[in-house]
């Protein structure tokens, strides 16, 4: 649809369909199939702009709104990209599972009760901009997570991919069960500093917040540990690289951001040094830089992340005295500027002494600064996993991370 009377515009016509299968005590509890369609629209005249999620596009109504608005101090800027583009990246196994979920019950077998969710999402996204870009993309993905329980102990694992493979989901359940086997005892820890091994699930949760702080809008408004960071500043351990990966084959992603800028992979932190904020065109202006293809109108954001793997085998990392953290939730920052946060561990949080599991320590709290966490990374595993789950919805590819001097507290 062409818009007249505006200086710039972008419309995203979207059509989504979603399948959710909920599992409780190894049985299907519910199956949800739902769809949505409509438009996301950004219209701009001078520095007046309107952003909306509309069922239909009514040019006259939208023009009336834009005309009465005052100038805004910040407004979206559409990239010069033009031309036509289309791609369909929906793997047929996703459509098959959407139609028929009978492949799922056989995966829910085992000694320990299984809880979890399997979600298939298929999205049509047609982006049109005032600069002449017409992009039609179709993408699908599956994410699944399973939590298994034995008495008072539990463990969890997750899997994300662009295709449904029964074996991968079975492996996911099996990994959670293996974690549960690590011990059948309780162990105690007190408030203090510990070496920890954080699983890919925990890294997914924490890096979601780190990438939020790397957003140009967060940095601009002071809600970030990266507000004053410049390229080359030392912000993390030199073994640590955090990357925005819109082009990852397994996770897949959009070819163009919401302002029509082509997306590309880039390091947010490269070998411990700050590289770039995540920028759209308008926050790029604030930072005297170029868009990094992460729009979000007004709010830039990552669509997928990666931490570079290390050189250690996971099994070799599990040596010495440390606490293994399988999963966490409820990460809350008391100070976004300083990165002071706490998060509560759940599932297999296990004390290791001399490389041997002593027992489950239960629900403790990591209470530290995000900057300290990434600065104190001493080892990363060779193995990495593509994960996302309920409390870490931004998909990413993560290794295990061994981190020194992490502050833990106990309620």
């Amino acid at each position: 649809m062409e818009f007249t009377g505006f200086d710039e515009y972008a419309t995203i016509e979207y059509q989504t369909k979603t399948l959710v299968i909920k599992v409780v005590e190894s049985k299907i509890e519910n199956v949800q199939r739902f769809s949505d369609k409509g438009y996301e629209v950004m219209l701009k005249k001078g520095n007046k702009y309107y952003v909306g999620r509309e069922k239909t596009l009514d040019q006259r109504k939208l023009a009336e709104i834009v005309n009465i608005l005052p100038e805004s101090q910040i407004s979206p800027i559409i990239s010069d990209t033009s031309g036509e583009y289309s791609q369909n990246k929906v793997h047929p196994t996703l459509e098959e599972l959407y139609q028929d979920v009978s492949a799922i019950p056989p995966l829910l077998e085992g000694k320990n009760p299984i809880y979890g969710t399997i979600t298939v999402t298929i999205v049509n996204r047609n982006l049109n901009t005032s600069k002449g870009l017409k992009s039609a993309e179709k993408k699908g993905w599956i994410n699944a997570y399973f939590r298994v329980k034995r008495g008072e102990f539990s463990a969890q694992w997750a899997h994300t991919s662009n295709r449904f493979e029964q074996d991968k989901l079975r492996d996911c359940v099996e990994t959670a069960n293996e974690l549960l086997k690590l011990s059948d005892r309780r162990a105690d820890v007190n408030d203090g500093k510990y070496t920890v091994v954080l699983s890919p699930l925990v890294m997914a949760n924490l890096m979601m917040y780190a990438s939020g702080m790397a957003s140009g809008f967060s940095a601009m408004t002071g809600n970030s540990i990266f507000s004053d960071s410049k390229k080359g500043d030392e912000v993390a351990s030199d073994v640590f690289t955090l990357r925005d990966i819109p082009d990852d084959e397994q996770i897949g992603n959009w070819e163009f951001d919401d302002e029509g800028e082509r997306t590309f992979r880039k390091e947010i932190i490269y070998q411990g040094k700050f590289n770039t904020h995540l920028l759209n065109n308008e926050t790029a202006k604030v930072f005297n830089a170029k868009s990094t293809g992460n729009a979000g109108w007004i709010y830039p954001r990552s669509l997928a992340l990666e931490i570079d793997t290390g050189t250690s085998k996971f099994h070799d990392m599990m040596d010495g005295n440390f606490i293994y953290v399988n999963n966490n939730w409820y990460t809350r920052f008391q100070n976004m500027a300083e990165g002071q946060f706490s998060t509560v561990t759940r599932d297999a949080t296990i004390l290791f002494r001399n490389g041997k599991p002593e027992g489950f320590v239960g629900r403790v709290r990591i209470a530290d600064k995000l900057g300290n966490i990434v600065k104190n990374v001493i080892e990363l595993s060779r193995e990495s996993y593509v994960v996302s789950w309920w409390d870490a919805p931004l998909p990413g590819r993560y290794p295990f991370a061994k981190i020194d001097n992490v502050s833990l507290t106990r309620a």
Partner: protein
Amino acid sequence: MYEDELRKISELFPSRYKEVRYHSVITKGMRYLNGKFAGIYNSEEEGFSVRTFNNGVLQFYASPNSTEIKPVGESLTGWEAGVSEEPVKSAKYESEEKVKLSSMSIDSKISYLNDVLSNVMKTEIKGKVKSLVFSYVESVETKEIMISDSDVIMGRVPRVLITYNIVLEGNGRTVTAWFEEGGSGGLEWLIQRNLQEKIEENLRSIDRVMHSGKGVTPGKKDVILSPILSGIMAHESVGHPFEMDRILGREFAQAGSSYLTEFKEDQVGSNVVNLSDNPTIPTSSGFYLIDDQGVSAREKKLIVSGKVNEMLQDRFTGFRTGRGSNGSARSSRFDREPLIRMSNTYFVPGEMSFEELVEDVREGIYFKNYMEWNIDDMRLGQRYIALEAYAINNGEIGEPLLFPVLEGTTTYFLKSVDGVDRNLDFKPGMCGKGDPEQGVPVWLGGPNMRLRNVNVKVM
């Protein structure tokens, strides 16, 4: 209005029990950055859904277009046990807009907020406002519900939510703070609530803490929690673990479990602890009179005199436990299934005055506001870090303190409560639950609440 569409959907699904719903949420918002206008955003979410129960499995379908909802026809067996059979209350409910949202044009609202926020930015403080991101959001939620071919239930709830995030620098520190105001109703939430004075007072209070705050000595102390803190405790430490779906394991992989699955005794607090969830409070964010399964809403007394009294139930948990539904099922939008949700959750006020709570404290801390809070997935171990806190010495509130930490378990705190005052204040919040995630509007509230001899930590 949509009865024909609802009946046509219902006819396609021959289940004995089914929930058919039209649901729309129309939202209009505007944003300010450092006192200056920074844009508006609107959102229209509207569509239809049906949820059926067969052979232990719930099947849910939703679409913006009623004619696109069709059964897949698969045969599954599953975990659910049955549906309780409370009568369907077919009626209409509405939250009153004392001042209609539509009575003020968009440009008048923008102009009104320009005046408020440009004045706020002139507040005299020692520190410097690095940023103030302000958001005003008004919404109207409309539902039409048919339960197993019943007459149509109609609900309309307009709401206002005001949020602002402040980043303040000064005295070698940076503080980030978050505030919320609002409820159901109309523009009275914007124009009759001394908004400018409230934001200015919050700025001055944080500034005072940053410049005059003293360090905290850790150890056992008496603590008084303001309604902001008693409210978050009511919601998170009692409301969530009293959701029966969580207790039964339905939410185990997502929002977690409940300490009630392991407790052998009913006494979870001292005998002055009383806690309710009540969706029928007019002007509240969590207002409704009939839930999304057609059950009449009522006050639920979750804790009475420190003892577990009642859980939050829907028709499915009501059947499984044999206690029936108490009208706690709610969904956030057309493509989300109804779940057991809190509405307005609060510690019930007592008879004491605030002065009486304070005068009896020899050495303690008044926690007035917090900047961080979280809890484990059994809803037992929790931690609060004060944004604004004051020393209490010999019965008098004194100097501001720098960020004391309260960390302990739900029962440790609730059994330490020895007094609650007669105030009752609420704050709005968005309560998250379910997969896919559903945020529903709620109120969190309580009186000032005194806890004796609890452990205070430092960061």
